[in-house]
């Protein structure tokens, strides 16, 4: 190590507290890493206090030592623990320092004498405290040896546990609390002792001088206590993730790193699900206003999460969404009793009596509903039955389970309600059992059926972003996604769009000539087609032509070997006019008239049916024919409960409960069901959906016999927001292969549409006028919902750029609007764009699907011309 030591610190130099967990202190390379980090903080001109946990595994080993009644076994356990530390010292090429030798002697003595002398709990606390006492002694030796003079500090000299009401001996000794207020005297004393210190997490001392433990999350809490005592510049928690995320990354791969939170928000997120931080470790920092920084030890370059006092300069935003499962609700109904003095107290006494602790509460005049968290007591005893029996004497009681609490956290939740309408509509389709909104205005909780949660949370996370309620566009608050930081395998980042570099000049020229214009980039169509052709499990791909029927695109896809899925005679004719005879055709209409089917049978198309009516009333049309049956799996098979009421709300597909009737009709008319088809929806990025559809269809097909292929539809998602992960084609292939191996008798068909063409098309338009209205700024362009109706129709989000000023800083916040006389004629709201000028060419991305085909002559404005780039 070089020894260009920084200049000595003044006595008033600020403190930085750095906490490292068990895995961070278990190996030599990790200690070298700690050394670098500590030195860099010292170089910032700060005194550094390092708080460490025990070496990984040691706390458990100490607990096992405590559980041994046999002295010999305790001593054996001690020896194994000592050896772990000797081994690490060996790696460090250090001899055993005196501080560690003292600790080892004491632990050896404790192991020998057992709990008898001190009493079980006090002895156990002291034994367990040795994990941290030893790791810190070892750390002090290592850091000092590497030219970073480090003082070993006994945390028990600084942290005094306070006695609390309701504490028994166990909680007093094993989950103690410390009242930590800034202590200038301690600050001064330490400043005289040195510049870098190391101490223990997890331990403190109580009034009688005994060693006590701080319980769960104890080491982080120690760091906070020290941060408060020293009124540190900041407390840094070094761990194995970069901080807190907008959702549990195991549920939502696209969860974003939260870069800034205030204490209350962070505490709420920690309490409702995030595991990275124990909620109790934030409160010591709140009053002295010491910020906390969470950092990833392995990736120190990542920004991490800063938790500090409330900041007001950001727009209100939902910060996180979480779900807790296994919740049981007790709903109590009674007329007029609630106002009686003491009635509720009596009711709650029953909960206490049966050992059940209440979490959420909601009430109406005649109903009080409470939630219970999952415990073994709840699952395996008669507690619920006994409680219900007692409650049934005074009110009507209903036990609702299994439920899950979905909580959205963000400061000022009530002021964001208007942005949540789409999200709330989603809840409108579900059984919502309870809603709770705390008076501190930090959260909004919905209790729903547990079965919907796994699919619902990722969807809500997406909707919160799309609705602008979770403002991921504010890069000061939100960092990269978990997927891009830690995702397994390679994250498939969106490659640079063709229009951004490669074709920009051509597009500007096209825009200068005339606007509005749709421009299609055939190489992109081919690229997407080839990506899908790598799906070896898929036997046949059909392009769903309704997305874009431009002849050049149809021809390109025919060359790539695609079949074509058409929903009307018009589409069939358009396709047949362009593609070769060999290209397979599917005709999948919905509520089509009789003559459409009759005509379709004169072509080579495979015809699909999705209701009983055609066979009931027009049997001759179908006699002796082979058909495809489109099913609605939304209902009847237990999948997709979220459309349990919505299944019958969708006009597509034959409900599964009418399948037998359909087959009887088919049999009666000599109609053979050759294929089954289901289409789940659109914009799906979770590959498991298609394998689930396939296996559901296969289960049904096994009952039919004549079925030869299963068409699992399309709906392959095309991410629109910057930074969103692409559909993982390799993962899709893997899951399809697996499910196909389980049902090998069927051919697998798919019919993607938007996936093939969305990115290939853009709409170019020119700036007309601007207008300011209050704090709102409108940027007018020369076309709108007449050319591209998706934003107005589906709240679709399209990236919008000012192609003329692509490289200028985006300083203005615009509502981008068209010239149509409709207040809904907004192409994009709250867009950060460069200051624009009349005539600038503006590009709307991902307009290749459902753009031109859905345009209309409304307001009789000129229609957008279509240009093809070969």
């Amino acid at each position, binding site marked *: 190590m070089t020894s260009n030591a920084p200049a000595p610190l003044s006595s008033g130099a600020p403190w930085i507290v750095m906490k490292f967990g068990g895995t961070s202190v278990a190996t030599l390379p990790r200690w070298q890493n700690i050394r670098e980090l500590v030195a860099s903080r010292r170089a910032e001109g700060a005194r550094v206090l390092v708080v460490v946990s025990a070496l990984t595994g040691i706390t458990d080993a100490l607990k096992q030592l405590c559980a041994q009644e046999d002295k010999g076994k305790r001593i054996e356990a001690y020896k194994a623990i000592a050896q772990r530390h000797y081994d690490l010292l060996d790696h460090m090429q250090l001899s055993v320092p005196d501080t560690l030798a003292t600790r080892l002697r004491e632990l050896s003595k404790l192991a020998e004498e057992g709990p008898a002398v001190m009493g079980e709990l006090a002895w156990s606390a002291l034994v367990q405290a040795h994990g941290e006492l030893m790791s810190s002694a070892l750390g002090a030796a290592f850091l000092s040896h590497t030219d970073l003079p480090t003082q070993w500090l006994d945390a028990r000299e600084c942290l005094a546990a306070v006695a609390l009401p309701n504490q028994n001996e166990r909680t007093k000794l094993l989950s103690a609390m410390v009242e930590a207020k800034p202590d200038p005297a301690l600050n001064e004393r330490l400043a005289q002792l040195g510049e870098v210190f190391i101490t223990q997490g997890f331990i403190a001392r109580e009034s009688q001088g005994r060693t006590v433990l701080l319980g769960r999350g104890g080491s982080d809490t120690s760091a906070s206590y020290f941060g408060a005592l020293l009124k540190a510049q900041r407390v840094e928690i070094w761990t194995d993730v970069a901080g807190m995320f907008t959702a549990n990354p195991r549920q939502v791969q696209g969860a974003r790193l939260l870069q800034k939170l205030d204490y209350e928000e962070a505490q709420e997120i920690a309490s409702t699900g995030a595991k990275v931080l124990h909620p109790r470790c934030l409160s010591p920092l709140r009053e002295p206003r010491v910020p906390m920084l969470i950092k990833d030890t392995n990736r120190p370059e990542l920004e991490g999460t800063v938790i500090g006092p409330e900041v007001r300069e950001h727009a209100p935003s939902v910060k996180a969404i979480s779900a807790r499962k296994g919740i049981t609700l007790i*709903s109590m109904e009674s007329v007029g009793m609630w106002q009686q003095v003491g009635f509720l107290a009596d009711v709650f006494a029953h909960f206490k009596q049966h050992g059940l602790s209440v979490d959420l509460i909601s009430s109406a005049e005649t109903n009080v509903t409470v939630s219970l968290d999952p415990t073994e007591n709840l699952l395996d*005893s008669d507690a619920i039955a006994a409680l*219900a029996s007692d409650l049934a004497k005074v009110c009507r*009681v209903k*036990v609702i389970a299994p439920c899950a609490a979905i909580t959205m956290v963000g400061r000022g939740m009530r002021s964001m309600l208007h942005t949540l309408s789409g999200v709330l509509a989603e809840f409108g389709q579900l059984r919502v059992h309870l809603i709770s909104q705390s008076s501190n205005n930090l959260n909004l909780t919905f209790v729903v059926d*547990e079965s919907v949660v796994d699919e619902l949370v990722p969807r809500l996370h997406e909707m919160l972003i799309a609705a602008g309620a979770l403002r991921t566009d504010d890069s000061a608050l939100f960092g990269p996604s978990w997927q891009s930081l830690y995702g397994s395998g390679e994250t498939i980042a969106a490659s640079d769009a063709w229009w951004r570099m490669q074709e920009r000049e051509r597009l500007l020229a096209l825009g200068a000539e005339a606007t509005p214009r749709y421009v299609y980039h055939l190489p992109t169509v081919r690229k997407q087609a080839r990506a899908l052709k790598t799906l070896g499990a898929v036997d046949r791909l059909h392009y769903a032509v309704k997305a874009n029927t431009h002849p050049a695109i149809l021809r390109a896809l025919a060359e790539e070997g695609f079949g074509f899925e058409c929903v009307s005679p018009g589409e069939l004719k358009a396709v047949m006019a362009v593609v070769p005879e060999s290209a397979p055709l599917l005709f999948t209409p919905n509520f089509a008239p009789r003559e459409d089917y009759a005509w379709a049978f004169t072509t080579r198309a495979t015809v699909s049916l999705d209701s009983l009516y055609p066979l009931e009333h027009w049997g001759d049309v179908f006699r002796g024919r082979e058909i495809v049956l489109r099913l609605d799996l939304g209902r009847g*098979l*237990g999948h997709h409960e979220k459309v349990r009421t919505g299944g019958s709300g969708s006009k597509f597909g034959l409900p599964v409960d009418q399948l037998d009737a359909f087959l009887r009709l088919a049999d009666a008319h000599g109609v053979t069901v050759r294929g089954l088809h289901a289409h789940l929806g659109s914009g799906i990025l979770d590959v498991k959906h298609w394998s689930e559809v396939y296996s559901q269809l296969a289960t049904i097909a096994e009952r039919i*016999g004549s079925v030869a292929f299963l068409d699992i539809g399309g709906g392959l998602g095309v991410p629109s927001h910057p930074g969103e992960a692409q559909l993982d084609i390799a993962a899709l292939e893997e899951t399809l292969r697996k*499910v196909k191996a389980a049902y090998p008798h069927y051919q697998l068909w798919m019919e993607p549409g938007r996936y093939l063409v969305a990115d290939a098309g853009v709409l170019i338009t020119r700036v007309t006028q601007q207008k300011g209205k209050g704090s709102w700024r409108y940027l007018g362009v020369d076309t709108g919902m007449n050319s591209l109706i998706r934003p107005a129709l589906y709240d679709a989000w399209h990236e919008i750029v000012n192609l003329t000023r692509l490289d200028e800083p985006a300083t203005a916040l615009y509502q981008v609007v068209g010239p149509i006389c409709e207040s809904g004629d907004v192409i994009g709201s709250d867009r950060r764009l460069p200051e624009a000028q009349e005539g600038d060419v503006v590009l709307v991305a991902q307009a290749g699907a459902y753009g031109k085909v859905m345009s209309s002559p409304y307001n009789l404005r000129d229609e957008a011309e279509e240009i093809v780039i070969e």
Partner: protein
Amino acid sequence: MTHPIQPRLTQVFRFVRHSYADGVAELVYAFDQGEELIERVRFPAPPALTPERKHAFNAALRLLHYIAGVSYYKAGVPPKIEVADGPLDDATADLLEALYLHGLAEFAYRNGLDLRGRIAFPRSGEPSGKVEAAALHLPKRTLVPIGGGKDSLVAVEAIKQIGGEATAVWVGNSPLIAACAERTGLPMLNIQRELAPGLFELNRLGAWNGHIPVTAVNSAILAVAAVLYGFDSIAFANERSASAATLEYEGQQVNHQWSKGYAFEQLLTDWLHTHVASDLDYCSLLRPYSELAITRAFAKLTPYFDAFSSCNRNFKILGPKPADRWCGQCPKCHFVFLALAPFLPKPRLLAIFGRNLLDDETQAAGFDALLEYHDHKPFECVGEGAEARAAMYTLSQRPEWQEDTLVARFRSEILPQLDVSQLALEPWLHASGEHRVPVRLQAALAAIG
């Protein structure tokens, strides 16, 4: 190219031949002069066949050929049956004709067919004497077929409890069954059955399709396995209500689970004793018990709660969630939910299923069918209507259940039409005397009750 066959117009169903070599049994069938349909049954790590077991093995294999033929016969249901290796004695022909007629009764009902008088195996006229076959001195250990549901697990635990030696066996490649078998901790035997690919082709050509008595096929496979590997007993887990008919149709009893019933058990046991080995026992360990008695026994087997499923949907890919094992919509899901409810804490039961089927009004029709209210018992392996009513009545008296939508509906709408004295749960928990459990395993019966 030959003319594509029209399965429904075929005239003869032929048992062409069967053979066994190196752990693979080949069973060959044909319609008319059509292509051979070859089914293969694969026995893993087969031991060499000892000369003294050879005769018994051949007899068991021959029966398997006849019984497994039901899957193919039903594709065309032709008027004539031919057996290449000669006519059958009366005992064998009686067994097969009963199986084909009753085992395909639901198939016939659903397809509007009448099979009475149509199924005739060629007979040699040899009378069905009660001559015992020779004893093979098979090792005292039991094959316990695992189905992934609760019943076989109750049987497994009962045999474990009396210290019996047993092997968990299953046919096919269901990952759910494999997971359950693994959970039993017993040695495992997984036999594979490959249907003739030609059957799928026949289906595409418009063959008759429907329910077949698959338990009979599996039983015949296990009889072959017992002789091959050396087991003195095959203990199924078919309960009392399996013998009850689902409905009556033009004077014929239609029972979805006929081959799980007592009649078939007796026929096959007797046949094995007279044709294969006097010391090879075939029985159902749960025969004396009602579904409710069995679910009560199962409610104590916590370690299986997150592995088992009785759901009718064929889950070929396992997942960790309850919805990956329980569809929540089929009669089996309904029945097991209802039958377990009286015996488990409510939150525990709901955690197994991941939802509360009794608080979902869209499931009303499904539960009505179980209660035989407005409907006949479903074509599924479920308990008797009276059993379901007793379970529902019990729940209707429990405060933690009685406000759930379908329980409340039962109280207000169905209960007033019922005789409460017929609704007690208790009588269902007693064993009946009827069973064919061999002496060696009878102690296990007590372990269940």
